[in-house]
């Protein structure tokens, strides 16, 4: 089995210079691996550092120590020491991130917001739009909304647009930060089905989910983040 993510002794703290240099430890000694076709769910109470770990894997937060290897084009790359352009290249063709909130660019129509990650990997705009449309239908976003920018949508609709955007490409690694939070039962089931399809396609996933039932359905393994607590 191919190891897609290999985290070795990663640690993270924040130093708040505006609060008199208070050091806020987040996690330390983070060690786990994720294989292709596997979904690892991070568990632990809020504030335990689950989202921080996802952001460290994505290269959004910097590590203070340790390594985070992600298999990129067949070669493990250490995100913790990669140059900005390497991280951008890894994000373009290897790691996708689905957050709870859509950071929408003004004026861009929903269909293009969803299609954009595919276009970035070199797929033609029409083919990308077609796939975007299929996903949006799946997630019950009516076609009359596709030409509108999502900034005017309800919170739940925006979240589903974001999910479509996150699931559209064929990236081998996906990070999911509460993808089903605040969705109704029907849409939650769609997301569970999408995750299942990704697994069968060999995608390695790390997820944060608070809903026990969803966790039970998607998790191949649970990693307890409290064991990485970085008590000061």
């Amino acid at each position, binding site marked *: 089995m191919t190891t897609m993510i290999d985290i070795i002794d990663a640690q993270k703290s*924040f*130093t708040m210079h*505006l609060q008199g240099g208070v050091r806020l430890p987040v996690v330390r000694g983070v060690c786990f691996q994720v294989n292709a076709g596997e979904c690892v769910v991070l568990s632990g109470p809020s504030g335990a550092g689950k989202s921080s770990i996802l952001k460290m894997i994505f290269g959004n937060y*910097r590590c203070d120590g340790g390594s985070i290897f992600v298999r990129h084009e067949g070669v493990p790359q250490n995100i913790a020491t990669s140059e900005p*352009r390497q991280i951008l*290249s890894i994000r*373009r063709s290897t790691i996708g991130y689905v957050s709870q909130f859509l950071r929408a*660019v*003004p*004026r861009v129509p929903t269909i293009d917001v969803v299609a954009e990650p595919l276009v970035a990997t070199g797929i033609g705009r029409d083919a990308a739009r077609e796939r975007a449309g299929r996903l949006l239908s799946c997630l019950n976003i009516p076609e009359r909304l596709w030409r509108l920018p999502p900034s005017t949508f309800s919170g739940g609709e925006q979240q589903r647009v974001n999910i479509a955007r996150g699931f559209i490409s064929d990236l081998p690694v996906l990070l999911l930060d509460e993808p089903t939070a605040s969705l109704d039962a029907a849409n939650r089931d769609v997301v569970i089905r999408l995750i299942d399809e990704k697994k069968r396609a060999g995608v390695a996933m790390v997820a944060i989910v608070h809903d026990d039932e969803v966790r039970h359905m998607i998790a191949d393994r649970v990693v307890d983040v409290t064991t990485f607590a970085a008590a000061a």
Partner: protein
Amino acid sequence: MTDAHGTDEALLVAEGLGKSYGRLTACQDISFSLYPGEVLAIVGESGSGKTTLLQLLSAQLAPTSGRVSYRMRDGVLRDLASLGEAERRFLFRTDWGYVHQDPAQGLRMAVSAGANVGERLMAVGWKHYGRIRQTASSWLERVEIDTARIDDAPRTYSGGMRQRLQIARNLVTEPRLVFMDEPTGGLDVSVQARLLDLMRNLVSELGLAAIVVTHDLAVARLLSHRVMVMKGGRVIETGLTDQVLDDPHEPYTQLLVSSILPP
């Protein structure tokens, strides 16, 4: 941002760049490489040396120390200081664009919009009037200016239109590198959003490299792949834009980030 085309040869390289005026140091010890298709934002408050740095990088000012090299179209990396006047003019006319904060500085206010765009084409040897006019007109459309206004002078334009016209004038020769000095400064917020969205699309469609000076972190976040934070003439923090803005390490960067009003 999605696009930073992965090439391994830097387009522009700054090494130990510095500028002082007598005892006053405007910027010092600045080194970085910019790659094709990459958008770099230089952020910091006024007086931090951003604009001086932009002028050094674009060969409008001579550095006191260090150097700037640029990869010419023949693939050779050349020290800007070693270029002859003709070569430097060639860069400015074709391979580079420079978008000023005040469009009046980058446009000729008394001649028509079409002529403002067409002039850059004539400077690189275009002669056919019909083709020049047609290209100018298609660029006006691209920057969302009604082509019925092609014969009007930019002094009759609004601030946002002028700025979009300045962008069209700069991009018409298909430059590889564009310098922008506070491109959205002085515009209404609603006009800013439209301009930013337009610039973001053009930069990624054309695979442009750009260096954008801004004090507005929202502009940096929307447009740039990478950011350099300046204070007192030095680069104090640099990295991937979302990394520096979401996980700032330096006290000054934390202050800048925490000073943004929530949307």
